[in-house]
């Protein structure tokens, strides 16, 4: 089992009482799984992904990745995990504005020490970015930026790709294309994919669908 999340709890301080976002969430993914995570806006999808990526601590529960509990790791350990095994695709793309497309695409792979195995021309072609390699993120459209982000995520050959509303900032057609690309690339590299989305239509393309509501996860 690649990822085994068990009994996650997370609450944020609210104005009067704590708001419980995750209330005993458990899920598991095997290598190559493509899972859609649906839920209303603010239902805690992002928080769940952040905890899995080691970006945020949890109040209770465990996240076993390849058998190791992320929650027990130190900062360096979690950073190494993200560097080497987990990639994230954000709603706002979060490219590095000071680097051009080529540099952004291979950046994560280089951090992970796998730049040598990246076939950049093929990757760029598959992303439809072959003509944009020297451009900077600010010169790209939203869809193009997100394709760079997806390329960056898969180029590092991660075991798990976490995508947080990857099409949330895109129009419907572009969103669909990006989504298809993400799925195709994940399947091609054999990475497990956990996509948070509120679109049931997009979720339909996944192997499994989970729904997060009032802190509970239902399949």
């Amino acid at each position: 089992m690649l990822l085994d999340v068990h009994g996650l709890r997370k609450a944020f301080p609210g104005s009067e009482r704590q708001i419980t976002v995750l209330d005993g969430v458990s899920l598991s993914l095997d290598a190559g799984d493509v899972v859609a995570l649906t839920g209303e806006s603010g239902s805690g999808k992002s928080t769940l992904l952040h905890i899995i990526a080691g970006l945020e601590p949890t109040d209770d529960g465990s996240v076993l990745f390849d058998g190791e509990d992320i929650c027990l790791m130190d900062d360096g350990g979690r950073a190494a995990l993200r560097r080497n095994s987990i990639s994230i695709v954000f709603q706002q793309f979060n490219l590095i504005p000071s680097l051009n497309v080529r540099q952004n695409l291979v950046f994560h792979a280089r951090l992970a020490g796998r730049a040598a195995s990246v076939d950049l021309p093929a990757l760029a072609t598959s992303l439809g970015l072959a003509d944009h390699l020297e451009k900077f993120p600010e010169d790209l459209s939203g869809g193009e930026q997100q394709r760079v982000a997806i390329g960056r995520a898969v180029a590092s050959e991660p075991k798990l790709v976490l995508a947080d509303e990857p099409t949330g900032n895109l129009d419907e057609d572009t969103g669909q294309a990006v989504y298809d690309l993400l799925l195709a690339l994940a399947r091609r590299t054999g990475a497990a994919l956990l996509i948070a989305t509120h679109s049931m239509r997009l979720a339909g393309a996944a192997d499994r669908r989970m729904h997060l509501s009032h802190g509970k996860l239902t399949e």
Partner: protein
Amino acid sequence: MTGPVLAALLSHWRRRPFQLATLLLGLSLATALWSGVQAINAEARKSYAEAAGILGGGGLSELVRTDGGMIPVKTFATLRRAGWLVSPLVDGWLSADGGRVRILGMDPFTVPQDTSIAATVEPSLYPELVGKNGVLLASPATAARLPDLEDRLRAIEDLAPNIVLADITSAQELLDIAGFSRMFLAPVQPLLRPDLASLAPELAIKPPATANDLGRLTDSFHLNLTAFGLLSFAVGLAIVHGSVGLAFEQRRPVLRTLRALGVSARRIVLCLVFELLTLALVGGALGIIVGYVMAAALLPDVAATLRGLYGATVNNALTLSPLWWLGGVGIACIGTAAAAANGLWRIARMPPLSPARPRAWIMASGHAMRWQAAGAAVCLAAAICAVTFGGGLVSGFVLVGGFLAAAALFLPTVLSSLIAVAARWSSGPIGQWFWADTRQQLPGLSLALMALLLALAANVGVGTMVASFRATFSGWLDQRLVSDLYVTVEDEADIPAFMAFLEDKSDAVLPIWHVDAEVMGAPAEIYGVVDHPVYAANWPLLSALPDTWNRIAAGRGALVNEQLARREGLSLEDRLPLPGGWTTAVVGIYSDYGNPLGQVVLPIETLTRHYPDVDRSDFGIVVPEQNSEALMAALTEEFGLPADRITDQGAVKEFSQSIFERTFAVTGALNVLTLAVAGVAILTNLLTLASMRLPQLAPVWALGLTRTTLGRLEFTRALVLAALTFTLALPVGLVLAWMLLAIINVEAFGWRLPMHLFPLDWARLGALSLGAAGLAGIWPAYRLARRPPADLARVFSHER
């Protein structure tokens, strides 16, 4: 409606007191240094004007002997009896505690009413001024420096410092001279007067002397101070610019909400202007107070410098006009406006629902780089024009100013290129990201880095000049002070006995006889030297004939100091007109650092023949085997010379060097202050950027760099930028030093100094600037490293 808007805007500062403090600190520092320097300059200029008013008659023309000699009393009477309304003056120097004092003898009976003298001296004092033992007028501070004349001195508060005003007869008696130095020409003359040429062909009308004469002499000093003031002001503004920009950016959501709630952009801008004005007033007021304290603390040193170096006199106490206070507040407001204009402009044009994009704020500054490079080219062109087509002190300063401005404006472009090169050479993703990111941060930091460059270059430049001066000066002192003891004989009648006493006890007794006189229209000193090999061996000549010392030994020719030679364009073999209407040839030019006056050295027989009234009481003694202490004791015990009439070489040297050190104490203090302000500027700019950079750093963190690594990189970035800036500042500073030594000093002082290099000083300065940048960078880096992950994660989940 304005009330709630203001409340919403101002609430920002309550939540960020540190930012408010930074802003006020920047404003106060900028205002303080600027107005402090202005206060010192204003005080000095006022003193010059007072002195020039007294000495120069406040705009009256004067009659002087064309040969620079004294005007006989008979000539004065002849002129008066022919209808020329002239008033005699006797001008000279008295020795006083802490340096000499100008004495001006005037004639209360004829002094024109339009003169400052007439305005300064109450007519009720006239009866006491004239006659035997007439009173002498001086400011209380000056009076205190003349204890020997205590009985005759009368303190006058309003009198310019370092001047004793007396009746002509008292002045003649104290200076032991006859005749008059010059004469005021009353502005209104009677109907019938014969030509001047028919009455006194040896006299000429000299146009009014002004404060400019002294001002020109001291210009370099004041421009130096002003330059530091401006520099510090610019550096302070870098701080303000950073804080204001951040505050505007951080309040974008508030502004957007206000706009959404129906507040017009105009009203928001007005509220922000009001807010800035308040801050400027508070910061300006604080700055003025600090500036006043600073000026008051530095002024005694400045006054001592100006007295020691130029003979110019400045009050030790500050008396500031309301204009100065207003000026300080004004400059604070102008500075704030300049620093905030950009931000206000953006807010005025902001569409109601534009997202906050702190990154864009920095990015936009990048386009300024091209303009800055163009500006740099213009500045450089102006500097080159100034030195090519201009002349004089002002164009010298245009050159320096243009060069420094160009260097500062070029800095971002040069840094950017250097970083690009570094990026190309760097391998590894982190290195690549580091350089790319550093380059992109440059626009946001460029103002602070320019400030640092200027502060460092000024430090290197002025430091090199001062150290070169010091090295040259002490070497020169060692050579020039050939005698081991310096002695003043009380009574000229004792001289033969004195010489006899020293006959077998000394290697040489060298008369140091001199007269103060006017040479080629300006005050000068004329000295005499005996024929003794010690001079030829020790006296450094800048230019000499092969037989210079032989000619002097043969009683022919004169040596002049560098100042006089430069001022009058004298070179070897030129004729030198001397007071008394005779001329001689220039046979040598010697360096004479630290002396504002022209100096002429004649063979002693020539001196005594032309100027029989020469002061003959001073001697230098060359003591065999450095046995000066024994000789000193012998002189006091056996010959009976009071101890206070004997000075040994060491004391003379020490005194000269103490004057020198005080001269540059102020420069040193300002140098350190400027550097400190530049350090603060970097700190505040880094802090500003740090809080905007989270969205940049979060993705890198998400990709697997730890917060500690990021913090370390941020710290390294500050060091790298400081190191690069220092590296660039070094050549700029050296060129500056060369300009100061070879152009400004020659114009201002009349002497040119060789340039020495002091790499150890640079190393120290480099370490200091790295230290400053490190100190400035460590706090933002530490904060980043300790940032809760949730803060970083929030970047991903929250809309920016």
